[in-house]
């Protein structure tokens, strides 16, 4: 009952004009970003961080989740109509979505995807609403050793799931952890790697690094690509009605994708992308007509698109309950929350319950907004894909420059952003994943605090970890994962979840 009261209060708080506008703007921008091949939700969320500073923490959180969520909705539009995925999580949708379009069923595919996204979003929010407080309470018993082991577990999975070469993922994580050590160490006020420079005393701010690596890198990357004008298939409102048979075939993939996506969202790595691949292969495996997949099977469109939407909500669970982001967009969210002096984690539900429940309520509203936005305006959104990058990228470049400068009025931050952007471009070319790096930067201070507190607690005897059941279980899981990863090729098996990180995570 208490949860219902809190949710009711959440609805009251989220129904303020500012929060509703934030929800709408986030959803709209997210959908547009999802439609546009190029900019991904992470880059856009990083770009929007400076603007959220003007509003409260809840408003900022609602706006950023709206972007992430909207991008998942919008990503399918170009996959179906143009055969170009708007963002990484919609790559799978191209396989059958575009085939449906060629058969004249684009409208039906878009309508079913929008409905599936709505159902998945609602199931995802329900899951978040149920699991987050339960896990948050459980996490109250976590001490520094448990947090440290949980982060080691997350880093092991992240480096393996995010990169083509796990070593590159691991290198990116530790490099991110290093960057977070620059500046005065809060535990003993000792300046490290500052080289006597005053500017480095406070450390390197997260925002310019994120905007550089996701925003500027993307801009430079698009500037180097040759632009090919997409051929967009038109779709009219009256074509949006799916047939009874298509609806019947979509119901179970929708539900399966929603539940599966939520649980995949709990894993470290590019969860939205992984969830679509897992859902697609599941649907193909259990289908009575697997041969239809790749030729316009409605299950191959609805399942993955539902999965990526609920994965967004799933990935919010570790962020909100433990304060540990498992994906690049949630790392940006963590940074945004910290900019507002809110530290997510087990205490969030006691110190800032209003933030959590307003966020949940706003997500329900946002989900409805996205459905209303996406169904009638699908044709208009599809046309956005035709905007040339030569027009869009100069505008985004300048928003990056002015946006980063405006946060602290610091030219140094702008230099950091540009350097990060250029380095990010080469890292991307050499297939070094960016997401583990940014998660390393965000989690660096927590990792160091947990390590030092653990060592102090155990008086230097690390073997005492064995006396902590949760810690040792997490370490055992990490070790088992690594053992499986190394042993699988020896038995001629390919590791099924190895997914190359897409540039637009």
């Amino acid at each position, binding site marked *: 009952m208490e949860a219902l009261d809190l949710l009711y209060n959440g609805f009251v708080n989220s129904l303020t004009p500012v929060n509703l506008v934030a929800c709408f703007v986030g959803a709209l921008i997210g959908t547009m970003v999802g439609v546009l091949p190029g900019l991904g939700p992470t880059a856009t969320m990083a770009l929007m961080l400076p603007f959220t500073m003007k509003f409260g923490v809840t408003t900022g959180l609602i706006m950023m989740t709206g972007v992430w969520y909207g991008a998942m909705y919008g990503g399918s539009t170009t996959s179906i109509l143009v055969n170009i995925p708007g963002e990484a999580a919609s790559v799978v949708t191209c396989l059958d979505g575009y085939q449906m379009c060629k058969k004249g069923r684009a409208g039906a595919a878009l309508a079913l995807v929008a409905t599936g996204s709505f159902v998945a979003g609602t199931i995802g929010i329900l899951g978040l609403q149920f699991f987050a407080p339960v896990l948050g309470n459980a996490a109250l018993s976590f001490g520094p050793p448990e947090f440290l082991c949980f982060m080691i577990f997350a880093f092991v999975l992240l480096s393996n799931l995010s990169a083509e070469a796990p070593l590159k993922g691991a290198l990116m994580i530790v490099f991110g952890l290093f960057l977070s*050590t620059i500046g005065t160490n809060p535990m003993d006020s000792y300046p490290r790697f500052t080289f006597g420079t005053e500017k480095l005393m406070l450390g390197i701010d997260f925002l310019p690094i994120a905007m550089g690596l996701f925003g*500027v890198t993307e801009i430079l990357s698009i500037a180097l690509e040759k632009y090919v004008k997409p051929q967009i298939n038109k779709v009219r409102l009256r074509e949006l009605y799916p047939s009874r048979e298509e609806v019947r075939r979509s119901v179970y993939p929708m539900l399966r994708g929603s539940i599966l996506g939520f649980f995949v969202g709990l894993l470290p790595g590019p969860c939205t992308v992984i969830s679509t691949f897992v859902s697609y292969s599941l649907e193909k495996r259990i289908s009575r007509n697997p041969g239809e997949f790749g030729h316009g099977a409605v299950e191959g469109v609805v399942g993955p698109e539902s999965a990526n939407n609920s994965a967004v909500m799933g990935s919010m669970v570790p962020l909100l309950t433990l304060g540990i982001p498992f994906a690049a967009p949630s790392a940006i969210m963590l940074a945004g929350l910290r900019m507002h002096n809110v530290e997510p984690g087990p205490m969030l539900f006691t110190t800032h319950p209003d933030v959590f429940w307003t966020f949940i309520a706003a997500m329900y509203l946002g989900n409805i907004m996205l459905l209303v936005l996406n169904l009638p305006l699908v044709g208009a959104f599809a046309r956005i894909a035709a905007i040339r990058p030569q027009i869009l990228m100069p505008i985004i470049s300048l928003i990056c420059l002015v946006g980063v400068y405006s946060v602290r009025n610091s030219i140094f931050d702008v230099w950091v952003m540009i350097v990060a952007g250029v380095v990010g471009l080469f890292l991307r070319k050499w297939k070094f994943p960016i997401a583990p790096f940014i998660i390393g930067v965000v989690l660096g201070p927590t990792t160091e605090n947990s*390590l030092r507190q653990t060592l102090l607690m155990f008086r230097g005897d690390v073997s005492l970890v064995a006396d902590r059941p949760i810690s040792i279980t997490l370490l055992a899981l990490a070790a088992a994962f690594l053992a499986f990863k190394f042993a699988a090729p020896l038995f001629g098996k390919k590791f099924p979840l190895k997914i190359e990180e897409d540039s637009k995570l």
Partner: protein
Amino acid sequence: MGKTARFRVETCFDFLMFVLGIAIAVMSWGYGFGSFGRPGPGLYPFFIGAAIALFAFFILLSNLRSDTAKPVLDRNGAVTLILMTATFCLWIVAMPLLGYVVVTLLAAFAFCKIMKLEGWWKPLAVSGGTALFIYLLFDYWLYIDLPRGILG
């Protein structure tokens, strides 16, 4: 030719990371390693530096053995990258002096031309629109005080 380009740049980067890892570990030792029972400020970055060196070393090794190669940038790409970066840098240098509106207008125009937006009217319209949008967004709606330079 392509193989050489990738070999040199990426291998140099891996080697640089390896050296950086060692440098971090050495510097961290200087900050005070302490002991496991009483960790000093250098303990954590020492292990981070060591891990960077270790991972970079193995990546370097695998890179040296790899024979897949593709040039990172062709000549046109390199020119575009240099011009884009130069425009970003010029914005940073000129913005405090000339003010953000003027510099934003000029930079947007430069970006349009670098990205080969044809003609003069379209780049002018895009840069004018961008400067106006930036002004409205930051100055008018968000009330953020940004350097105005010559426009006072």
